[in-house]
């Protein structure tokens, strides 16, 4: 077997770190833009600063945590339906 020598872009931890830094910066800028730009909103909650940002973050954390709990109840072996019992 030939051993693969080629280094790919995300094999280097510094590239992953750079990508994450850029990502965090964009998140920060988007949050700040809420205070700078004028928005015309329809729902009262939209007036809250950072409503969408906070909602998106919390929604996803809640989603994943509930889904993890669901696994305890719903998860069965891969061949659950294939085995006669």
């Amino acid at each position: 077997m030939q051993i693969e020598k080629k280094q790919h872009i995300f094999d280097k931890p510094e590239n992953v770190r750079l990508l994450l830094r850029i990502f965090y910066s964009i998140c920060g800028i988007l949050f700040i833009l809420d205070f700078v730009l004028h928005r015309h909103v329809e729902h009262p909650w939209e007036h809250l600063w950072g409503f969408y940002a906070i909602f998106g973050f919390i929604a996803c954390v809640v989603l994943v945590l509930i889904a993890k709990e669901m696994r305890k109840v719903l998860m069965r072996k891969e061949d659950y339906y294939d085995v006669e019992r």
Partner: protein
Amino acid sequence: MWSAELPPFLLFYLGAFLVLFLRGWLRALVMLAIPVLGGLHLWFDVAPGIVHSVGLLEFDLVVMRTDRLSLLFGYLFHIAALLAIVFSLHVRDTTQHVAGLVYAGSALGAVFAGDLLTLFLFWELLAVSSVFLVWARQTPQSFRAGLRYLVIQVLSGVLLLAGAMAYYWQNDTLAFNHIGLEGVAGWLIFLAFGIKCAFPLLHNWLTDAYPEATPTGTVFLSAFTTKVAVYALARGFAGTEILIYIGAAMTCFPIFYAVIENDLRRVLAYSMINQIGFMVCGIGIGTALALNGAVAHAFNDVIFKGLLFMSMGSVLYMTGRMNGSDLGGLYKTMPKTATLCIIGAASISAFPLFSGFVSKSMVMSALLKGEHHIVWLMLLFASAGVFHHAGIKIPYFAFFAHDSGIRASEPPRNMLLAMSVAAVLCVFIGSYPLWLYSLLPWDVDYMPYDTTHVLAQLQLLFFSALAFVWLNLRGLYPPELRSTNLDAEWFYRRLFPAFYGRLLQGLSFIGMTSGGFVRDRLQTLLAGLTRSHGPEGTLARTWPTGSMVLWVAVLLGVYLILYYL
């Protein structure tokens, strides 16, 4: 090119027949020519307002009825058929090619059907033709999943037929226009549409069968069945309030399953129910903006969901694996597929400049205008969730995450071409929504790109991604595990078979215990019968003709005496 009254399904059925006898490049040419010629004909020659019917027995079947709604889905299905055909050109399997063409043709037949009977015919043809795309995988699992799929789809058709008959009895017409939930007919038809639309609890045929189909078959499947149902709902049940809540439930519950599902095509199947939820919700609101949003989202969904299923189909085709737990690191050798998948993921997540954004925002705006605040929050939650499971999870676990060590090369050129065209369409519609808006059935002045919308959507998506990154870095993200997750299908895949099995066991127990008694009685009975009817039995003897004449004479004599008495 040809008469505008000629229904588009004819060309597809004719093509499917030709494909049976053609091989090699000639077959490929015919298969490509059908959606191209049919689509161009529909685009240039066919105008709204055509009604064309053919007589069958005492009924007039309206096989071609065009208005802006049916034409929009007509264009869409030609595009979808072309993409799926290009994607499956390398396949050497006549069954799949013929089934794909008949299936696409039936979808066109259904959207141009002007009466419920015609709709029913194509409704069943959709079921029967598409199941071969599942069976073509040729595994025991796909065979069983296909059977379950077929039973449920045919059941939907039976309900539609019963509903159509009741509708005829109530209204003395079979015309397929607004139906509403009045009377038994409305509910039967609603339920039939609901099954095909994957309403909650009726949805498992989709998550069961689609991931079991062939890599190319799923691309066909994802385009037609559910979108025909969305079309039918938009025509028959626009503004039916219960749809808002059904739609909201559809957007929310599948995303939990999508997060813990391992089979990436099953993740996409769950996310498909989530996307249909947005459409169903829009149809339920029933305003022009909401209905436009619903059908525009159906249009975009066929293309971006097709693109995602194509990218996963390519991964399955090249690696033979589809579980998130087995994949990862494929970007190293499949960078083009990875990029195209990310475009599909950005579109389904409704990133600005990608197609999902310009249609989903219409439904969201319509919800706010209609003051459905709770449902709006549910759909906002689902929008964040869809980015989480379809937008990030699919590309991340297939192409990045941990290195699985698989070094698969890029898929064949036809697959890459189909994905590229779909990706271009996603970006084109997202960046220039006016093209799609000009095709929408209702007149609405709507512009998705303003600072408020774009900023809100970007914040929602980036902070959803931030949650993913945070959960991953903290080790809180649930790992991909080989597993089956129980869903509503448990009732018919486990509970009913178990109940039925017990019933059989019980019956055989009764048979075993009471067997001796019954056997004795039977033997006595048989012995008695043998005595009278057996070879030596009294009743089996041959009688001379003379004795019969004698007995007839006796009978007649008795009769005479009785008569004179």
